[in-house]
């Protein structure tokens, strides 16, 4: 891993390697620790390095990364150290941000962190917020070539109006506002050139390298996780699949739900360009800046959770619920964007989840849950392992064991979630591969609920949506 890190340092633009930041041995060491954590094992082949980091960043390591930082902050609360940590994070993010194809992963990382306010020092948050908003460096001339390649004509010929400045960073491209000739306002997401192919080639190499290995006792699980990552990455670079995800999701909500998934315009969409309805309204930050009252925050929180459960119980779990993917429409509706990362649960995965969910109704014990998840008996017999699992599971279950609205804005509760996750990871608590994205999804929306400081009756929402699912299945 050292080589990788040095390569990364060598690739640093000058402004980021200013002596006060990187010449500190401590900073270097900490950064090294982060990158050591980013790779499960050193990968010897140069071309794989990029993808390795990419795959890691966009999945469980995003969480590992959070945990690593959290641990640092909670363990050493000294101001000096805190500021060092956030300098490091800033450097790490900017560094990754500057690395070509890794830009997408860096944006994702930023979004994951951006959902964890107050726990992170202010300075870090502002860097992260700029990752949200800052347009990736694809200038209009390059973008025009991509549109020409994909749609056959210049944006100026296709659209009545096309904003040359992007208004959002997508994970591997950027989003522009435009108006169709028929008058509709749309958002046009355009992929950076060559990324799908590069990713596919890297994936092939990587999988050929990893799959035959048996690095851990629980190899089948790791292998499953790798395949889950592979599938998700493939899905993310294919806007045709994303368009399909959006169509499926859109059909799940009616006017009475007050939840809106944008319509896709197929005639202006390809694997690398996605044109969809533009939803006017503030994002989370702007929404909160206007000091919305508790009832409004609760209502949006409720809609977020209804949407989450509806998608989850339709086996299309939205794996990427970060603040940039929600629009708080002025008429009170909640808009959900970006379906590039949707976990399609298989029948057997659903069966495991159904059995496991009984723990939320207190119908099975933790030990039974772990057995449903296929955890080895030796782990279940280990008191430390069991305790870590219990704390993590309790954090997941508490809002469901609660009658009535639960306060997701309570800092102690959220902090407990971060800590329990850290602990679970340090004790190497494992779960089925599908859990990788599911956890990311749950964590993502709880971070949002925390930021929104909403009080939501998760228990009732779950029951209603579960009944809806049973109803649907019985028809």
């Amino acid at each position, binding site marked *: 891993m050292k080589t990788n890190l040095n390569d990364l340092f060598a690739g640093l*633009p000058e402004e980021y390697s200013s002596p006060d930041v990187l010449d500190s041995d401590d900073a270097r060491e900490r950064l090294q620790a982060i990158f050591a954590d980013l790779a499960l094992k050193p990968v010897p082949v140069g071309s794989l390095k990029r993808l390795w980091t990419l795959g890691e960043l966009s999945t469980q390591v995003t969480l590992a990364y959070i945990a690593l930082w959290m641990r640092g902050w909670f363990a050493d609360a000294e101001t000096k150290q805190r500021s060092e940590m956030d300098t490091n994070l800033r450097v790490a993010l900017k560094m990754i941000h500057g690395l*070509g194809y890794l830009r997408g992963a860096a944006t994702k990382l930023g979004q994951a962190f951006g959902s964890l306010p107050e726990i992170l020092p202010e300075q870090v948050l502002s860097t992260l917020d700029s990752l949200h908003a800052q347009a990736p*460096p*694809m*200038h*209009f*001339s*390059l973008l025009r*070539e*991509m549109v020409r*390649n994909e749609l056959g004509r210049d944006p100026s010929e296709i659209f009545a109006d096309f904003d040359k400045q992007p208004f959002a960073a997508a994970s591997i491209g950027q989003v522009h506002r435009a108006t169709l000739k028929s008058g509709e306002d749309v958002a046009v997401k355009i992929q*950076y*050139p*060559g*990324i799908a*192919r*590069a990713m596919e080639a890297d994936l092939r190499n990587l999988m050929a390298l990893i799959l035959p290995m048996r690095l851990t006792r629980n190899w089948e699980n790791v292998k499953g996780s790798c395949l889950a990552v592979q599938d998700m990455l493939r899905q993310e670079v294919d806007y045709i699949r994303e368009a399909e995800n959006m169509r499926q999701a859109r059909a799940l909500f009616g006017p009475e739900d007050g939840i809106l998934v944008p319509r896709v315009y197929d005639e202006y969409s390809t694997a690398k360009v996605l044109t969809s309805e533009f939803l006017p309204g503030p994002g989370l930050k702007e929404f909160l800046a206007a000091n919305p009252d508790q009832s409004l925050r609760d209502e949006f929180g409720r809609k977020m959770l209804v949407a989450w459960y509806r998608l989850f119980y339709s086996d299309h779990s939205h794996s990427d619920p970060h603040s940039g993917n929600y629009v708080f429409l002025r008429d009170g509706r909640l808009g959900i964007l970006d379906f590039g990362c949707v976990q399609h649960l298989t029948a057997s995965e659903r069966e495991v989840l159904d059995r496991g969910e009984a723990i939320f109704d207190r119908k099975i014990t933790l030990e039974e849950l772990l057995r449903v998840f296929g955890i080895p008996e030796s782990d279940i017999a280990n008191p430390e392992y069991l305790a870590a699992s219990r704390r993590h599971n309790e954090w997941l279950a508490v809002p469901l064991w609660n009658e009535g609205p639960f306060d997701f804005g309570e800092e102690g509760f959220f902090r407990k979630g971060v800590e329990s996750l850290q602990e679970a990871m340090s004790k190497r608590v494992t779960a089925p591969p599908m859990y990788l994205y599911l956890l990311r999804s749950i964590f993502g929306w709880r971070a949002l609920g925390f930021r929104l400081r909403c009080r939501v009756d998760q228990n009732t929402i779950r029951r209603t949506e579960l009944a809806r699912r049973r109803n649907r299945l019985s028809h």
Partner: protein
Amino acid sequence: MVDTNWCLSLFYERDHFMRITAEAKVATRERIVKAAAKLFRKNGWESTTTRGIAAAAGIATGTLFNYFESKEAIVAALIAEALERAEQEIRNRDESLEEELFTFIWTELASLRAYRKFLADAAESILSPLRRYARESAGDSIRANHLEAVEQILISRGVPGPLPAVTMQLYWTLYLGVFAHWATDDSANQEDTLALLDQSLKLFITSLPRPGDQHHEDESE
């Protein structure tokens, strides 16, 4: 008494005659370039001879040499045309330096798209920096014209001139790399080259001298 009308008619006819000759020359030149491009595409760079090109254009081999001294020169003409189009494209545009350079190079490459297949081989013998000094080469003029256009872009964008030779050499090295990649790029619409060009230009631009680099005394104010 001299008939003025007669004199005038003589003059006009001469002019007319010269114009026809000039037009015929342009047409022949075009015919040669077209025939050559067709043969290059069909038979490849190496197997195409000037004799073959002359035959395809319907002229004597000797006549061909009145127009082009070698098949390299024909390719140089194709590239010169593309370069002209590229210069045309960036005229009157209000873009960043990076974007302007991007448009300039990509327009040139896009106008050569139909010739991509043989340009890879042709570039080996014309543009290769290793061969440049071996003999007088059509590549020299390609390089000089291209770099002149780039230098103009840079200076018009406030990059302090005269530009160091090493800056231009770095540009040329990157450009040749992009060109070589493009010529053999099998991705759809040469999309991978788009990415390479984008990143190469970013790299090049960070290497440029910035305004004020040579005026340190100004900073002491």
